[in-house]
């Protein structure tokens, strides 16, 4: 436990140091930050726009914006929230421009993509367990993709990025109480969507 905390604190300091170096125009710091945030930021953008090509373009635009605005960033603040807010604003502008209806309507395509690592079975699972788990994940991904953007967003920030409610409120620029009720509604919507796939039964 102590080791994990130390590691976590060490990671936090490293991020702060990179941000400070980036403010001074250090190219290596930029490289380290892009590498560090590549999976989280890409996943967040993909959850919002649901199209890999668009998410990758927005990923690049986000880092251009970071470079442009890094001097106005207060290094004592939460860099994660600031970065995700920049990405969010760009994604919303993009969605408004490209598909005005996509901010609150579901899209047929699923953003779910399975990695090679996901296909490697766990030693403790039987092939049947693994197949059932994969099926549950696919169902979950598809149900989540059917939700409106603001619900997908809050779910990915809470469960995938493991942000606290206060951080979610900061990223989405709403009061904490709104972020909380949005999370509750998104979970309820997700549950309805999952249970609708199993008429007469519950999703387990």
């Amino acid at each position, binding site marked *: 436990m102590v080791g994990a905390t130390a590691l976590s604190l060490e990671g936090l300091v490293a991020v702060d140091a990179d941000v400070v170096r980036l403010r001074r*125009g250090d*190219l290596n710091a*930029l*490289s380290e930050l*892009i*590498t560090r945030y*590549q*999976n989280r930021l*890409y*996943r967040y953008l*993909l959850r919002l726009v649901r199209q*890999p090509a668009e*998410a*990758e373009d927005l*990923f*690049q635009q986000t*880092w*251009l914006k*970071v*470079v*442009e605005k890094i001097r106005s960033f207060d290094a004592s603040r939460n860099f994660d929230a600031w970065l995700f807010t920049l990405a969010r604003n760009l994604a919303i502008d993009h969605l408004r421009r490209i598909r005005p209806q996509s901010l609150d309507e579901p899209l047929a395509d699923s*953003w*779910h*993509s*399975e*990695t090679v*690592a*996901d296909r490697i079975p766990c030693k403790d699972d039987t092939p049947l367990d693994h197949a059932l788990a994969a099926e*549950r*994940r696919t169902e*979950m*991904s598809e149900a*989540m993709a059917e939700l409106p953007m603001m619900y997908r967003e809050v*779910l990915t920030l*809470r*469960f*995938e990025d493991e942000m606290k*409610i206060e951080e979610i409120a900061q990223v989405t620029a709403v009061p904490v109480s709104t972020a*909380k009720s949005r*999370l*509750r509604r998104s*979970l*309820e919507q*997700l*549950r309805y969507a*999952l249970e609708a796939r199993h008429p007469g039964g*519950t*999703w*387990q």
Partner: protein
Amino acid sequence: MSEHDKIRELLALAAADALTSAEERQVAEHVRSCIACSNELEAWRPIASELRRLPTPQPSPWLVQATLARAGAKLTEQAERDWNRHVMIVVVAFAWLLTIASWPVFHFVTGRFGSWLEPQFSHTQFGQTLLGRTWFSNTWISFTAFTALGWLAGGVAAVMLTIRQRGERRLA
């Protein structure tokens, strides 16, 4: 709204670990005595658990490199612009100092040999009241001509430097 209904609204958030410690205590206390809420909480848990286990989609392998190339170029451009701005401030300050410091020398030389700089209206009353000669107008017209030449040379140098930097950036 009854206590039971209030707690029921918190169950999804309890599974999401998004409650305050006071709310967590309330929920824990209630579900110990309410089977319906206990079952409801258990129904939320696999959903929250599955959400945490969703596979992380992987970006294209080239994305980091492409992003670094674009953002890095912008960072370099910004650093170059800042450097130019600082150099410009120093050069302008230096130019002014040099101009002001060299003015007495220039005036001494032109006063002796550059009588062509004397303006036609130099015998104005105002000019004559200053030490009995055309000191005021001669000084300012000559000073303006002197500094204008300096600024012109500086401006040409700055334009040439910018064109060269743009050319180098395009080649890079």
